[in-house]
């Protein structure tokens, strides 16, 4: 690094990125906070400021409870399952030699795919009359179920799809972490007669703990924002006309886009902003808790 400061030149190099980021990242960030406290905002003008009204309106929305419920279920069920399964797959995949490359490619495939296209494929797997799942259930004499027809079974389907969609990235990160662990630790453990399961709990997991912490944080944040999987599986309208609030698959992000789509109604944009701030605060709190836990658990 040169000692001499080159301020003007540096800012010139930064200009294109900073200009775009100012318009599309920094300004929106502040504006979101501004919008959330405006009264009856519509088409660029507002009638004044309010303190908590927009937040109250969001919370009073009959869909809000459902959105929180759906989001929480997705977060607290799919994340632990997919992290655990991905960890097991990665460790086992890392331990084999034959067919490792082929299996690895298959496990990585979902990473690049399109959430909408695959969601449609899943919707057809869960189809009552023509779906694969009911076909497989019929092999063990279980009657067909209209998986996407009720909230309970629909949620099960959504969770299956969410776990499926989350595996690839986690396996990729875990595998690259596992491959960076010095093999000598495993040789040392072998010489010391360490049972396989203890090697996993006492050596692999601690040495992989930075990856596990990273994956846990990012998956929590990611599934708090669940929306595209739902659009893929259930269709573009997360609040189809005629569904009862407690039967919909609306999530917090779904709620934000619902409000935003009614931007011509006074106050709706502010509600979207308020909801997005609530989402931000929630994910931030989770990240902080996660990091605090990791700091105690993660080694190095």
């Amino acid at each position, binding site marked *: 690094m040169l000692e001499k400061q080159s301020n003007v030149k540096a800012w010139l190099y930064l200009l294109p990125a900073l200009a775009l980021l100012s318009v599309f990242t920094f300004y929106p960030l502040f504006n979101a906070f501004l919008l959330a406290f405006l009264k009856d905002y519509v088409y660029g003008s507002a009638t004044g400021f309010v303190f908590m009204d927009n937040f109250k309106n969001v919370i009073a929305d009959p869909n809000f409870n459902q959105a929180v419920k759906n989001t929480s279920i997705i977060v607290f069920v799919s994340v632990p399952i997919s992290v655990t399964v991905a960890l097991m797959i990665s460790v086992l995949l890392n331990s084999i030699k034959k067919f490792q490359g082929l299996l690895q490619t298959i496990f990585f495939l979902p990473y690049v795919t399109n959430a909408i296209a695959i969601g449609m494929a899943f919707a057809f797997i869960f189809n009552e009359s023509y779906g694969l799942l009911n076909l497989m259930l019929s092999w063990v004499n279980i009657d067909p179920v209209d998986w996407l027809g009720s909230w309970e079974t629909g949620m099960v389907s959504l969770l299956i799809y969410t776990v499926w969609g989350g595996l690839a990235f986690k396996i990729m990160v875990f595998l690259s972490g596992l491959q960076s662990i*010095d093999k*000598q*630790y495993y*040789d*040392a453990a*072998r*010489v*010391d*007669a*360490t*049972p396989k399961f*203890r090697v996993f709990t*006492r*050596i692999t997991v*601690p*040495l992989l*703990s930075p990856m596990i912490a990273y994956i846990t944080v990012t998956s929590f944040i990611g599934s708090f924002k669940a929306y595209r999987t739902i659009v893929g599986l259930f269709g573009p309208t997360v609040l189809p006309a005629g569904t009862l609030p407690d039967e919909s698959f609306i999530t917090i992000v779904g709620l934000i886009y619902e409000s935003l789509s009614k931007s011509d109604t006074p106050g709706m944009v502010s509600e979207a902003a308020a909801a997005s701030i609530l989402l931000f605060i929630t994910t931030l709190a989770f990240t902080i808790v996660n990091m605090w836990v990791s700091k105690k658990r993660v*080694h*190095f």
Partner: protein
Amino acid sequence: MEIKLQDLTKIFQAKDKTETVAVKSLDITIPSGKLIGLLGPSGCGKSTTLYMIAGLLKPNNGRIFFGDEDVTDMAPEDRGIGLVFQNYALYPHMSVQQNIMFPLENIKVPKDEALVRAQEMADLVGIGDLMSRKPKQLSGGQQQRVAIARALVKKPRVLLLDEPLSNLDARLRLQTREEIKRIQRETGITTIFVTHDQEEAMSISDEIVLMELGEKRQMGEPQDVYDFPNNLFVARFLGTPPINMYDGVISKKNVLVNGKAIGTTKGADGEVFVGIRPEGYIIDKDGPLELTVYMVETIGRDTALIIKVPNTENDTFRVIVDASERIKPGEVVKMKIKPKKMFVFNKETGELIN
């Protein structure tokens, strides 16, 4: 525990099916309770041999015995060995104490007993007061002691060390090698270590095994191997400065170098290599060798004369003489040779003739 390697062979197969013979029909008997150095240049198969003894590599052929027990097909964990890895392989997330106790947990030693044994081992290697530290907070030398303590704590039948000193700086190296010797003496455990550093091997081993190209070249007590090298490789590999190697001829039991007789031999007439240890020269105005001194290095006790010798492999030789001899560059010195420091080798096979 006596260790016997019989006809041990290891072949590595690369992805393109090319085969490399890393260890070739190795026969070694390692006496019980001794410290043995496996010595050789890199790629000579010494580490491969160590890993086969440990069970981490499976030989393609041959047997390994611990005492009378054939352990060739035994898993490493059943062999009762302690292994110290080149970069120690200390678990970074565990404290020193947890690292040392880890092998005991695996064999379900009760916690109280494990604590006592771990402390004993830590005291033995001199790190008893560092038990709560993490490996990252230790110096290289301390890390190595932890690794040795971890290897010894389960009372193995054999202790194996892979290049134990290579990751330490020069000063620590001297200290640590004495330490290894002391620990080995105190425990009486049969110990095998691998090194490419001849000085290291010579200084602490009870016996050394010299390996080249996957084969054993010579085994014996360090001084014996130095004094009586069986072949060209051993003669060249041992000794600093290295042995001076001349092209010579045997004629009627006389060894001739540059046409001058410098000693006698039992060998038949023919072309040979003549090796003379640097300390094997005596200044003598009637001596047969006439050497032109190119440079003089005085290192306290000794003086090394650097001699340019054309038509030899290194071009320059070193001759060690007493520091009281005052010799200047450019001088021509006449020398004779100590018979015990001269070795005559067959030019084809490299075997010792003498």
